[in-house]
């Protein structure tokens, strides 16, 4: 286990790496600029905004402000949110193989987004519907064990499997009846994930959810340690199991649902980043969760920067996170092979 000092060093390193990568991401792309130009554009754009001169922003300022900065922020926030909810889910279900999808949030969100696409709705309606149906799927998953009066984790996972499977079939129906060239391809493209369409105002909608959710979960992170020992141990330590589990599941599902609603489904992050975090700073959630959030933000930012620069076409994010994430996961397992039981 790393000491407090090395933990601070790791966090400092990650923060610096994140800042540096953000600057690089700001500069590269189809319209390449150097860092001085990028900062100059930020300064002059803000100046115009503050002085309300009514001057039109230049092309460079537009690229920086309308396209790149929201996209960079979006990638960081979404990567951090998915890692955070992955870490929380793994603790709640005391299983390192769990990802936030286990209660059906992603498949639900896909159904919501696909419905909006079929109804010809706007981007905003797609995001809202994805969020609402994603969250509804989780609530349904948590309702089934209550109806059966069995509060065990296993029952919750099974009911998540039922809801997820059902949502996948509904999505299948929607794909089946979709117009092949337009709607179907939109659905499929959405399912592969992208932060291309993240704009400043989308970020502003989800920022309160991200912020409030992250603060609450970080405050509860030590209690999550206890939860990860199992239900009986948590109870005998005086933890209000029902409430803690309910709050953490609902909040992390809200985080995932809002991330998915603006970026589509992005695989692997919620699964591998918490692993990477545990390998780096240990299993104590008070350290692991902040670390995983930084790592997740950094990881998705790197992926997105690759996605938009490596070819002339945008590569969907899930393809990259899978192509790169799966080998990383294999490497992680190899690193801790002795401990995998």
């Amino acid at each position: 286990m790393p000491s407090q000092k090395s933990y601070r060093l790791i966090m400092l390193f990650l923060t610096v790496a994140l800042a540096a990568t953000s600057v690089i991401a700001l500069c590269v792309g189809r319209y390449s600029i150097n860092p001085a130009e990028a900062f100059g554009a930020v300064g002059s754009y803000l100046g115009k905004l503050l002085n309300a001169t009514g001057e039109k922003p230049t092309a460079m300022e537009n690229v920086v402000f309308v396209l790149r900065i929201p996209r960079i922020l979006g990638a960081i926030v979404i990567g951090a949110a998915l890692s955070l909810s992955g870490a929380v889910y793994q603790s709640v279900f005391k299983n390192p193989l769990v990802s936030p999808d286990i209660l059906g949030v992603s498949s639900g969100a896909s159904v919501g987004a696909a419905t909006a696409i079929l109804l010809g709705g706007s981007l905003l309606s797609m995001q809202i519907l994805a969020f609402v149906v994603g969250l509804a799927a989780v609530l349904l998953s948590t309702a089934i064990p209550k109806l059966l009066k069995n509060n065990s984790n296993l029952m919750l996972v099974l009911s998540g499997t039922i809801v997820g499977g059902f949502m996948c079939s509904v999505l299948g129906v929607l794909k089946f009846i979709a117009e092949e060239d337009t709607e179907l391809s939109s659905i499929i493209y959405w399912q592969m994930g992208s932060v291309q369409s993240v704009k400043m105002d989308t970020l502003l909608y989800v920022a309160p959810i991200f912020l409030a959710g992250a603060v609450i979960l970080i405050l509860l992170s030590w209690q999550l340690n206890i939860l990860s020992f199992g239900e009986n141990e948590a109870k005998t330590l005086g933890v209000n199991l029902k409430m803690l589990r309910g709050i953490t599941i609902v909040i992390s599902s809200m985080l995932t649902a809002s991330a998915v609603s603006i970026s589509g489904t992005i695989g692997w992050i919620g699964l591998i980043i918490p692993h990477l975090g545990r390998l780096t700073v240990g299993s104590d959630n008070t350290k692991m969760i902040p670390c995983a959030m930084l790592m997740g933000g950094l990881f998705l930012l790197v992926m997105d920067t690759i996605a938009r620069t490596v070819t002339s076409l945008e590569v969907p994010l899930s393809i990259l996170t899978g192509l790169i994430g799966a080998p990383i996961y294999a490497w992680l397992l190899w690193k801790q092979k002795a401990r995998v039981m």
Partner: protein
Amino acid sequence: MVQLTGHNLHYSYTPDRMILKDISFRFKSGEIVSILGPNGAGKTTFLNCLANLVPLDKGEIFIDDKNIKKIPPREVAKVIGYVPQIIVPSFDFSVLEYVVTGCAPHMGTLSRPKQEHYDIAMDAIKRMGIEKLTNRSYSQISGGERQQVSIARALAQRPSFILMDEPTAHLDYGNQIKVLKTVRSLKEEGYGVILTTHNPDHALLLQDQVAILDRSGVLSTGLSTDVLNERDLTELYGTELKLFYEERLNRDVCAAPQFTI
């Protein structure tokens, strides 16, 4: 002194499978209670009822004069600590990180352990004599060491009663005796220890209270010297057992005679 009393407890898995049948008891801190009974009699279930983990069908448990159902879980945890039989951790915590969670009942929901809590955890670790394990990973220590770590956590919880579910179950003979010695010294320090065991000889070794749970769900309690006798033990375990005084051991011993096959 704190008292843990049960009045007319009933518990059954199904209507025809009675585990606890109208049982009553009074356990005190500073006492060891060894719960004996054959496989499937419900010793662990009984312990779980005491820990408030399993809802009773009928009956009430009181801590002093307060009904346990009306006390918030955190307050119950300040009085009753629990050492589970075995824990397979899903994640890799250090022993110190694990033991310090014993302080949870004494902390706020949103707070984290501070230096004072780590000090309490360290005291508990020292009390168990396992300082060398402090920074080891919980998943990489032996079963006997885990048992000691779990007891250390219960000590960090500072309860009046420590419940132990078969504390000797996964240990070699040396470690079994070591745990029983620890139990004995916890009694001297004023803790009430309530444990389940498969070995009636352990109850004799501990020389204190015994609670026998038989298959029909009846509990008989009393001092080991009063309650345990050859005839009842033979009947309880369904095999011939001898109970005798052994001079070299300076105590009563319960053991099985030579096979006559």
